[in-house]
């Protein structure tokens, strides 16, 4: 088993918390793991990316080779496109639709969505809307994560127990809302796949 995942977004959007959730699920599945992160200057509103590599064998490079990513998971639509050269043939792109327009020349949303739709395997999800619907606008990252879980070769129950572990400290309500957000994302993917 090998799953190479690129997690993309904009500095400040919290992609590392998504990486941590997948990472924990991987460890609980006895997989090996390497997770490369971006710290420093780019965290100030720049493009950020995390390379997450899961395998049942030894992982060498911290970076995913071009053409090697099984999944691009993005919490911002334009950022989903930035790492396409890393996508493997048959790989999936799962992205949130809410743009972060912190640059003057941000392209039109329709253009971006058209590009993503032209990819063979894509899931385009309005995670912010879904998060609002379940009454937790701050859980949109968990919705995107949920939408990506069908494409990660880890038992969904292990994701759920991981979420419970991560949010335990913040109380049962927080655990429940995040589980709900993840489930909603997952259901969307399964329905729209």
């Amino acid at each position, binding site marked *: 088993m090998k799953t190479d995942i690129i997690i993309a977004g*904009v*500095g*400040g959007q919290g992609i590392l918390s998504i990486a941590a959730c997948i*990472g924990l699920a991987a*460890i609980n599945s006895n997989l*090996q*793991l*390497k*997770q*490369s*992160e*971006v*710290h*420093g*200057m*780019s*965290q*100030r*509103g*720049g*493009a950020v990316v995390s*390379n997450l590599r899961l395998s049942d064998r030894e*992982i*060498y*490079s*911290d*970076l995913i*080779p*071009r*053409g090697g*990513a099984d999944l691009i998971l993005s919490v911002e639509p*334009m*950022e989903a*496109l*930035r790492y*396409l*050269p*890393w*996508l*493997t*043939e048959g*790989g999936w792109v799962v992205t949130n639709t809410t743009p972060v327009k*912190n*640059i*003057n*020349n*941000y*392209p039109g949303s329709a*253009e*971006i969505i058209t*590009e993503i739709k032209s*990819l063979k395997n894509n899931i385009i999800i309005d995670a912010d809307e879904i998060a609002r619907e379940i009454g937790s606008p701050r859980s949109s990252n968990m919705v995107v994560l949920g939408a990506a879980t069908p494409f990660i070769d880890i038992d969904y129950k292990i994701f759920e127990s991981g979420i419970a572990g991560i949010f335990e400290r913040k109380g049962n309500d927080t655990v429940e809302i995040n589980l709900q957000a993840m489930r909603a994302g997952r259901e969307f993917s399964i329905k729209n796949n």
Partner: protein
Amino acid sequence: MDKLMLLGDEAIAQAGMDAGISGIYAYPGTPSTEIMEYVQKSVSSPAHEIFCQWSANEKTAMEAALGMSYAGKRTMVCMKHVGLNVAADPFMNSAVTGVNGGFLIVVADDPSMHSSQNEQDSRFYGKFAMIPVLEPSNQQESYDMVFHGFELSEKFRLPVMIRITTRLSHSRAAVKGKETLDKKTLGLPADPMQFILLPGIARKRYSNLLSYQPEIEKESEHSGYNQFFQGNDNSIGFIACGLAYNYLMEIVHAKKLDHPVLKISQYPLPRLLIRKIKDQCDSLLILEEGYPLVEEFLKGFPGSDKKITGRLDGSLPREGELNPDHVAKALGFSVMEGPSVPGVVKNRPPSLCKGCGHIDMYNALIEAIETYGPGRVFSDIGCYTLGALPPFSAINSCVDMGASITMAKGAADAGLHPSVCVIGDSTFTHSGMTGLLDAVNDQSPITVIIGDNSTTGMTGGQASSATGRIEDICRGIGVLPEHIRLIIPLKKNHAENVAVMKEEFAYRGVSVIIARRECIQVANRRRKEVRTIKS
């Protein structure tokens, strides 16, 4: 012991605590910051008793660490590559004095300049100082090498460098801990003259350092971290240093290659091992994260008739960090890329946060200086360097920490008026204060704008040395009190702030304008913490 998921930086920090350090010294700098932060987060119980406060700069950190070693205890000092330039004086001399308690210098280089002004390779500093250098290739080695580094340091009574790079600093993997070592007790150096580098003594100490060279090279030859792996196809052999070894292994396994490999993770270079692979193979490809240190050494090797390739001949890029694709291409494999990036994707450079005080500071500055024309604002390193980018394009230099003030002074001495500089509060105490003293002593007419967000912002909001004491420091240095002005960079104060700046730009002497407003990130975090405590 349980496995922990640690960044390379955190693995080093955890190892330091497990290996019995009594103190760690550092100034924040990407990609090294998380080492100190991890210790600070971990040292919650008084039982740990590890000194872990930020220093004013890398030089004071290095010297304090040397003092702790003098007193017989194990210590680490951590910095980014350009921080070692700041600390170069005590660094070079600590090799001559040698150490008492185990002394590790952890330097995190930033090839590709993700968050830096250059991509200098600290292995050259290690060679320059003639001390052992350890270059881990993964998180587990980062952990283990701290123990190994202390062993070497205490065996030879020398400082030992651990050199990592961004990709290892900021990548996480499982790390297995070792049994912890006890801290050392206070114990002064056996030789009371050891640390006195008066010429007569310094010459003896230097001879001593030179006399250790064959022995530390022998350590490299026999180090478990320098490994020779046999291969059946001798048409080419690989020498891979530190992290580059992983990229090589990625390709070796993907393409099922069978060539001899020498992995180097400990310096000085193991010459016998290098001779072995060189004699055996028809050609060599040298893979190093950073400058071509090994490649240059080999090309000057006596009887060097074989083909040696790497960064110097263009087989690998001369600049930037390596990746598996570079290695694949160097070996003649085509890379099966995914779809290309569509034209609709635009660059997204870092920018000042929404609500940041620096934005209002720059908006006032741009208006106040407009009548004088462009090209007269010097700056240096911090979040405020982003003022160089649109929509501000407000600064004209960024060279090194503190250079804003001194370059403005030099330009003023040359006749530029007004000559203005923008510096942050943490950078001011790091390296700006002495330059301000020069300006005061020489009455160089400059206006220093201190963007005081009361934190070390760019690296994530670490404590700043002189929060709340900036005015006192400026007065103490000799800036006239009537020319130390405080402004609050808020939109509603814009007209007033422009007026203050205009007044000071017109003044032909040293003036300081402190633009003070707390970093928005730190303020948000603080509010969140308060909420958590209340709930």
